[in-house]
Structures are given as structure tokens and as C-alpha cells.
């Protein structure tokens, strides 16, 4: 990572964007470890995660990768194992390695593609009671 690069993606709602992005990452990293980036609270597993009021999520590939990050920080050994999501206003920032792996590039592409749907405005119809 070493500093990492920020990828800014427009979004409509921060909590939805964080949920959608987190879920996308966990599809690639099935043993992902999720942490609130501000409080350090563990959010994983996804099924128990809450997104209200969360502004940053640190997703490491595994619990072991998370432990390694705590111990060594950004270095060759931890490369390709962390994605940092930050939601602010109408923007989701995805922080990845300076020189990301193909997997990380794919993940970011899918997050971006999924969030485009989230930008659309739809209305739902009413139904007359029987």
C-alpha cells in the first residue's frame, strides 16, 4: 500500500454505498475482517454489520491480515490485503495499494459499477387497498 491511492466514486447515500461496497469486497474476500475505521470496532461478519453512523470501514482479506497490519503496518507482507472505504457526503473514497493487484482493480471496478445503479432515482407505485 505505502500511502495508497484514493479512488473517488460518486454515491447517493453514504450508508448504502458503504454497505454495497463492503458486500462487494466480501464476495471476493470471503473471510474478510471488517472494522470501523474510526472506532476500531469489529463489524464482521457482514450479516451482523451495522452501517448507521459509520464513515470509514477497514476491510482486510482475513483476520490474520488484520493482525499483520496492526503489527507491521504498510509493507510488502501486507500488500494487497487492505481496502479502506470512506464515505463522506456524496462521495465514497476507496483507498487501495499504490500498485494494486488485478483483484483489487476488479473490486474497485465492481464497486463503481454497482454504485452507478445506486445513483438512479426511482419511484414506487401505490396500490389501492382491497
Amino acid at each position, binding site marked *: 500500500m505505502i500511502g495508497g491511492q484514493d479512488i473517488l466514486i460518486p454515491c*447517493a*447515500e453514504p*450508508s*448504502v454505498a458503504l*454497505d*454495497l461496497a463492503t*458486500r*462487494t469486497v*466480501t*464476495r*471476493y474476500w*470471503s473471510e474478510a475482517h471488517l472494522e470501523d475505521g474510526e472506532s476500531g470496532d469489529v463489524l464482521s*461478519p*457482514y*450479516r451482523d454489520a*451495522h*452501517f*448507521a453512523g459509520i464513515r470509514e470501514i477497514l476491510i482486510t482479506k482475513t483476520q490474520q491480515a488484520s493482525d499483520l497490519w496492526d503489527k507491521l503496518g504498510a509493507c510488502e507482507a501486507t500488500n494487497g490485503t487492505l481496502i479502506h472505504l470512506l464515505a463522506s457526503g456524496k462521495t465514497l473514497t476507496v483507498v487501495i495499494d499504490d500498485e494494486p493487484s488485478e483483484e483489487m482493480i*476488479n473490486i474497485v471496478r*465492481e464497486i463503481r*459499477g*454497482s454504485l452507478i*445503479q*445506486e445513483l*438512479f*432515482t*426511482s*419511484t*414506487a*407505485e*401505490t*396500490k*389501492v*387497498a382491497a
Partner: protein
Amino acid sequence: MSNITIDPLEQLIRASGENWLIDWFAPPDKALPHFRQVLERADQCAVQRFGQNGPRLTIEALRDEQQGNPHKVRALLQILPTIASPDMLVMALRIMRGMNIDSMHLEYEEEQSFRLRVRLKSMYDDKEIDEYETTDIHDAVVLRHFGILKMNDRPAFDGFYPLRVGD
């Protein structure tokens, strides 16, 4: 001094910002009884499938969920006016709690027939599988809440999200 009691379901809906659910319902005063009935039937379906301690669709359970994931409760509420099969609400809840959409079969012939079958698989346990089926086209409302993505260029429907409701 008088005590004003606000209906818990109305409170849930208003807190979600989905006032249109009540205001647009025809007639509006029938909205809450209708939604309450749909939720009660859905909760019964959930209990039949997963027992009393499984995922629930009571107003209390939704209020708890609203604390941690208000957007998920919004997504559920948004399908209430249209949904025909309460079991579809259970399906939506299960997807939001981490089930993957393993397969989906849609059969449709104009003015003839509609059938939607969805199989969910846990992202944590391959053996945990749910199946849902409906023949009422109103239940197709769930499709527009599915997230759409590609995994290494392979297709996946994933997640169940709220729509942004226009002004």
C-alpha cells in the same frame, strides 16, 4: 394533559423517511392496517422457515434493525405496498442478512403466466440454502432492489437495497 400514542408502524415508516407509503396509499387511512397485515403474515412465514429465534419481521425487530441499518429497513418498507407474497419479504430480509442470490429463474408470458423462483445460499455455509417461489407478478418488485455486479466478469445479483424515492 393528554398522552398521544403514535402507532409503532407509523413511527417506523416516518422515521425511515418513507412517508409516501402512507400518503400515497389509496385510501391513506387503510395503509397501516394493510402493511401491518403483510408484515404479520411475513413474520409467520419467517417463523415457519426458521423458528422463533430466526430472522423476524415484527415491528420490534424492524425497529432494532433500523438502529443499525436504516437503509435496509427502508428497502423492506419500499416493497410493502406492492408485494403479494409475504414470503418475498422473508427472502429480502435473508439477502440483507448476508445470503447470496445463488440462482433465479423467471418465466413470463405476456398476459399468460409469471413465475419467479429464487434460491439463496449463505455466504458462510454452502449447505444453508433457502428457496422462494411466486407466481404473482407484483412480486417482481423485488427484482429492482437487487444489486447487480460482475465477479471476475461473471454475473451476480447481490444484496437488496433501497431505491431513492423521487420528490
